[in-house]
């Protein structure tokens, strides 16, 4: 029926479909390129190196997944179920390690444990005959666990705090003891959040390039960069990307299978579980453990950075440095604004739909987050180069001396890649707020003869304002920390805080990297502080719960 099709064409659907196409085409491109004839380098990689890449990658993500799940779950459980001194402070501070980019933690820890480093010197002077080498697989596992476990912590904590006390109380009334309540009720109800948080950790680990490059851990993103830059072999890089994408899809598939179909998020009204006061020795040990985690994940590297910054700030801070900050902020703000805008369009397009086509479209556009930066970078680069090639005759019309790569040499390419990669984060936050608000207000607006755009601006956006703000902040933090995309796709001589930190570290100028690293961490810390404290001020108070 024509009227049905016409009804489906509006600003949301047009933008959504274009966005989806822009995301799908580069990805399909990669998968198609895998079919092109193999190069000599690829044959070499496949015969001699591929097995090691696969083994290292699986070991890395396996251990990181287990450790961060344990750490995240432990801290979330303690914070939401026990009362102790400093609980409120810890409850948001445990998110802070996310403000510490993994690669910065990696440089600092490697340095502290190196022969001349703070910790190694301390150990020698204390006559402890212990030598720790960070720069290997175990070191990388430690770094990723410490900097990424907050994903598990956040997800588990919010699941725990929304778990109504009535579940546990009922279980206890039915005669279950504390341990049984934990193992049969609390943990199973927590499983989806735990699995989702762990999945995020795994995806972030696969995405990383800074840590594995510095520690020389031969995993996929390392291999892809290596093939692309050192060997200059596009085909090999693309094939490696193809294999990595298969691994990622397998992981997502496993996650779906583990999460299962059962519904866990049933809305049961009731008060949350009352935290229990810790007594005796545990009142000391439990908080101490959490503070130790915080120290390892955040404060120790931070202290070392402050020390280095105090040595170098007078050399590092100059006009160039100001430009660096402005570059980073402008880029991050632009990318964030576009991402949140497109995510909002997608969310509107998909609201309350049962349409298979729309749902499929959405799944595809949200895949970006699962795909490691190195792969996205290569996909975007091939795609934009393709556009430049096609448009070359047009460029010539305007400027006969034009170079071949016009769009490719601008920030458009990098911004596009950011949008592609972080879309899912923005989308999920917006969708969650839409779910909470429901559709009745939008429908009421339509029934009062307000059009799509007016409804969006005067009803939907004000009602999901907080979802939009959190979406923006989370995307912003991710963009400003981002490394692999930035390294591959930035225009020549364009630097951001992240790329500058990476360069200093690469050139063994760790002390000089401290100031840009601290600015980066500072911005991210501020954003996290805002995010965790803004929502508490009773903003949702006037949304009546029905």
């Amino acid at each position, binding site marked *: 029926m*024509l*009227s*049905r099709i016409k*009804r489906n064409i509006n600003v949301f659907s047009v933008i959504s479909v274009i966005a989806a196409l822009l995301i799908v085409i580069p990805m399909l491109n990669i998968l198609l390129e895998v079919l092109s004839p193999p190069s000599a380098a690829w044959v070499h990689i496949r015969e001699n190196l591929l097995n090691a890449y696969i083994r290292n990658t699986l070991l890395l993500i396996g251990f990181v997944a287990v450790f961060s799940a344990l750490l995240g779950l432990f801290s979330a459980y303690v914070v939401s179920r026990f009362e102790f001194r400093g609980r409120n402070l810890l409850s948001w501070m445990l998110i802070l390690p996310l403000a510490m980019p993994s690669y910065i933690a990696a440089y600092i820890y490697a340095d502290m444990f190196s022969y001349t480093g703070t910790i190694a010197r301390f150990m020698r002077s204390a006559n402890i005959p212990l030598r720790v080498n960070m720069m290997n697989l175990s070191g990388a596992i430690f770094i990723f666990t410490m900097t990424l476990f907050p994903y598990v912590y956040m997800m588990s904590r919010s699941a725990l705090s929304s778990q109504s006390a009535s579940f546990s109380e009922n279980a206890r009334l039915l005669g279950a003891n504390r341990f049984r309540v934990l193992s049969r009720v609390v943990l199973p109800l927590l499983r989806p959040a735990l699995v989702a948080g762990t999945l995020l950790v795994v995806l972030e680990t696969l995405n990383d390039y800074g840590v594995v490059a510095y520690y020389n851990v031969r995993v996929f993103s390392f291999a892809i960069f290596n093939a692309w830059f050192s060997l200059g072999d596009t085909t090999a890089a693309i094939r490696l990307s193809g294999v990595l994408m298969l691994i990622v899809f397998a992981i997502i598939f496993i996650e779906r299978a583990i999460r299962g179909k059962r519904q866990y998020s049933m809305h049961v009204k009731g008060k949350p579980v009352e935290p229990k006061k810790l007594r005796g020795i545990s009142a000391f040990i439990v908080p101490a453990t959490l503070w130790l985690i915080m120290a390892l994940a955040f404060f120790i590297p931070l202290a070392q950075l402050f020390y280095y910054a105090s040595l170098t700030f007078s050399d590092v801070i100059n006009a160039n440095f100001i430009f660096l900050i402005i570059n980073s902020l402008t880029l991050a703000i632009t990318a964030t604004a576009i991402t949140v805008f497109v995510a909002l369009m997608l969310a509107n397009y998909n609201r309350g739909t*049962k349409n298979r086509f729309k749902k499929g479209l959405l799944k595809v556009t949200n895949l970006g987050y699962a795909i490691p930066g190195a792969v996205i970078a290569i996909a975007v680069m091939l795609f934009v180069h393709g556009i430049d090639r096609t448009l070359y005759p047009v460029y010539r019309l305007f400027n006969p001396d034009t170079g071949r790569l016009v769009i490719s040499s601008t920030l458009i390419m990098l911004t596009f890649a950011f949008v592609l990669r972080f879309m899912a984060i923005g989308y999920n936050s917006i969708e969650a707020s839409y779910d909470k608000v429901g559709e*009745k*207000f939008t*429908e*009421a*607006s*339509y*029934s*009062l*003869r*307000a*059009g*799509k755009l*007016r*409804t969006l601006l*005067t*009803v939907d956006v*004000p*009602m999901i304002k907080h979802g939009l703000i959190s979406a923006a902040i989370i995307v912003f933090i991710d963009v400003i920390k981002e490394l692999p995309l930035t390294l591959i796709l930035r225009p020549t001589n364009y630097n951001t805080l992240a790329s500058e930190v990476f360069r200093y570290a690469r050139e063994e100028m760790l002390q000089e990297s401290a100031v840009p690293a601290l600015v980066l961490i500072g911005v991210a810390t501020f954003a996290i502080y805002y995010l965790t404290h803004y929502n508490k001020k009773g903003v949702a*108070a*006037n*949304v*009546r719960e*029905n």
Partner: protein
Amino acid sequence: MYVRIESIDFGYTKKQTVLKDISFSMVEGEIVAILGSSGSGKSTLLRLLSGLEIPARGKIEINEETLCSADTFVECEKRHVGMVFQDYALFPHMDVYKNIAFGIRKYPKAQKRQRVMEMLDLINMEEKIHAYPHELSGGQQQRIALARALAPSPDILLLDEPFSNLDADLKMRIRHELRTIMKKSGMTSIFVTHDYDDAKDIADRIVYLENGRIAYEENVRHQ
């Protein structure tokens, strides 16, 4: 006939049938109650009339305008249909004035204010003009929702279980009040309920809905 509904079929999915062969008509100013148990498809019928869902088959005509037929479909925001939602759906970030004025944005300012005051006068709540929805009781919220739906002078007013969120005491009082307001405004109205007493006290005619079909109709009052 002012309202004419002919052989409407509808299901939320292709396989499902929620409403089957629904036909009835109304004269101008009439109040019809749709009475049926929970899940019988009452809310769905209102969603079809307001344009929030598209019927699989059938025709809807209100005030000589075809809103829906085999080859036309007028979208919700283009229909002159007022709706009072089951839980009122007052915009929580707007005060009473802004809520009521929402549907008459195109009126000149002075006229808009006058219309809002008229509505507040009708529901007897002038003093609450700057209150926010969360500061109002359930009964007050319901009356604001009614005023908001009436302000743009729709061709027809739809009310979904207008009493379901009120306690029994209040309900008795408001039932008569609601009929008075509706009759005073001369509005053609359809309201949905699962309670026979509601239907009997307010409506001119009751349409019984059972499993998505009209079982029978009963005249309660002679006009």
